[in-house]
């Protein structure tokens, strides 16, 4: 039925198998699935912010988030009780940058993470629930000492190897961003606010709890973002099932549109659920959180 064309690998991705989606190493280790979702989402945001601090371009950051997401999937994936989400985030970002035209150094990566993970200085709500301090924080709460750098560097490089082995060295990540803009041109839309909105949707989808980037091909993500963005901006597209021209069927489009629209609500809910608390990004914290939940359950 559907025909295959060789040479499309560079715009397509490896996708998670049903088995990988229904079993995770973390859940086998007793991490509740909604906790896993929260940590994965926080880790993705951490990666995004670190990438911005490092002046990395968004394609590198997005690739890092996809690699980060893939790492935790499946019984053969990484477990949150063995690997700290913050380390995997840093190594994924370092790895993606290394493969790009914009490599960065272990020191830069560790400096960025040291700042973002500082409970006093961090602007991230899930690390520093008080919010960005109004006064510039004391530098010693986020400056990386030489000793911590050396230790952190070893961890960074070791986790890099762990990621590579877990993913079978498949580091290829195709992104929908450029595909979406090409499709948009094909559709004859020349509207900067639509283009911007498309990129916003695509970047937000990186944080989706439905793991859209590891379950759908980039062309489908691109089409869904175009669908949403044009509708939100009141831009009329051609009549007809234009998405089929881009090899997306209505069902997949519908699912992705729902998924992309729900991301905002999910993040709001996360923020509310974790109000005043930090999301555990280190194995010890994960253990403590699981223990806390167990105690609460017993107390009830």
């Amino acid at each position: 039925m559907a025909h295959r064309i060789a040479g499309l690998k560079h715009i397509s991705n490896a996708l998670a198998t049903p088995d990988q989606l229904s079993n995770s190493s973390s859940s086998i280790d007793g991490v509740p699935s909604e906790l896993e979702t929260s940590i994965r989402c926080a880790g993705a945001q951490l990666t995004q912010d670190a990438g911005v601090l490092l002046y990395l371009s968004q394609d590198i950051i997005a690739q890092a988030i996809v690699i980060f997401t893939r790492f935790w999937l499946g019984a053969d994936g990484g477990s949150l009780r063995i690997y700290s989400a913050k380390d995997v985030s840093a190594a994924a970002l370092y790895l993606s940058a290394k493969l790009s035209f914009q490599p960065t150094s272990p020191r830069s990566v560790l400096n960025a993470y040291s700042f973002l993970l500082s409970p006093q200085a961090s602007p991230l709500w899930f690390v520093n629930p008080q919010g960005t301090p109004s006064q510039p924080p004391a530098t010693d709460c986020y400056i990386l000492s030489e000793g911590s750098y050396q230790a952190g560097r070893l961890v960074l490089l070791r986790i890099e190897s762990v990621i590579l082995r877990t993913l079978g060295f498949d580091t290829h990540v195709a992104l929908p961003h450029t595909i979406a803009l090409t499709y948009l041109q094909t559709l004859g839309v020349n509207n900067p606010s639509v283009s911007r909105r498309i990129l916003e949707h695509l970047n937000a989808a990186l944080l989706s709890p439905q793991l859209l980037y590891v379950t759908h091909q980039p062309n489908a993500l691109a089409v869904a973002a175009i669908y949403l963005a044009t509708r939100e901006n009141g831009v009329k597209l051609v009549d007809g099932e234009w998405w089929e021209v881009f090899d997306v069927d209505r069902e997949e489009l519908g699912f992705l549109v729902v998924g992309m629209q729900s991301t905002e609500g999910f993040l709001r809910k996360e923020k509310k659920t974790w109000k005043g608390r930090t999301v555990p990004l280190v194995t010890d914290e994960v253990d403590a959180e699981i223990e806390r939940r167990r105690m609460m359950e017993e107390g009830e």
Partner: protein
Amino acid sequence: MSASKSRWAEDDPETEAIVAQRKREKEEKRRAKAEKQRLLEEASKAQAAATTPADPTSPSQDINGDSGPPKKRRRLSNDPDAPSGGGEISTSEGSKKQSSLLRFPAGEWGPCRHVDNFERLNHIEEGSYGWVSRAKDITTGEIVALKKLKIENAPDGFPVTGLREIQTLLEARHQNVVYLREVVMGNKMDDVYLVMDFLEHDLKTLLDEMREPFLPSEIKTLLLQVVGGLEFLHSQWIMHRDLKTSNLLLNNRGEIKIADFGMARYYGDPPPKLTQLVVTLWYRSPELLLGVDKYGTEIDMWSIGCIFGELLTKEPLLQGKNEVDQVSKIFALTGPPNQQIWPGFRSLPNAKSLRLPATPATSTRNPPLLPRSRFPYLTNAGLDLLSSLLALNPAVRPTAQQCLAHPYFREDPRPKPKEMFPSFPSKAGLEKRRRHHTPEAPKHGQDAPELDFAGVFGGAPGGDAGEAGAGFSLRLG
């Protein structure tokens, strides 16, 4: 509801039965609907120009209407009974069959297996980027080539060259590119092996062992395959950057495959700044030698020219002792560059020190034909192709695609069918091979050397003393 309908859930064996049933129901509904549409269509045909109101569910209508997500069970926006402007998109039958949709190749990922799944048979070769041995897959009994990556003293973690090699090989699935089956690991963190299809020969060893060069028809078959593989790589935005005869593998069925992607990388348009320290010296293009930092796939085409020449004569075409000597060997073959045949070469970093003899009035041809005396048995079309591949000006070199369309490959003798190709005893499979004296590919991370080309045409140090002052004398044999 949406989760259970996503594309991955359909593959879940546990819900297979439910999904199958649902599919059947859907199929029935679809059929009923198609029938209904058919009837409607007939009806609408009868009414010819009857314009029906626009379908309320089309996405453009959603702007003003509901802001909710499109519902799964909603009718199609371009039901064929509503004559829409998208006539060129919608199918005339109005069937919702998705048969026209392209399925993207979706791979999977999983953890690396252990190298103990392979039994090592014999050592083949040590290259600049790893050790290669012949091995047997213990479970399937298949013979494979096992390449251990060199990872020692890597201050930046896993070497980027190794990562690129894996990434590009995984993507470059083509019959003329060596097939990377998987990556396996050893006990230590830095034991990483590439498992590839085993091929009996490499072209370099074969040329060394052969008494007579390949026949013209065989050369065409080989070259077509190499350029075909390269054309695919370039179409996938991959530059090989280390093409040479020892990186071309040949099996006993006349198939040749491009191997060793240790230097390969993705490129962009416009070309990004890249290291000039690529490609083994004898196959390195003049613009790289002159220090260009933005280059493209033309450097691979130059290497193809060198390989073409080597196939013709059985000897590497341009065996420079060092960068400076390489440049003089190139100019001795092609003639010196001038503004006419290579505009702008003077502004390349290493061209400053280049002292060229006063250029004689050259032919109007660009690129100029190579001396016929060097390739006495080559046809005119062949010489034309070789001359264009070995054009000093990278912009003049043909792309891989243009190369494939060259008349040389269509004139007699025609390329020999692969099945008719002679077979040879395999060095890699059986005996120890002797080491070649091919210079090694430049190491990643080296600093680009400061080159002084003052001696290329003078008698100054660095040049080949024997050729001093006689840059254009042809040394045959």
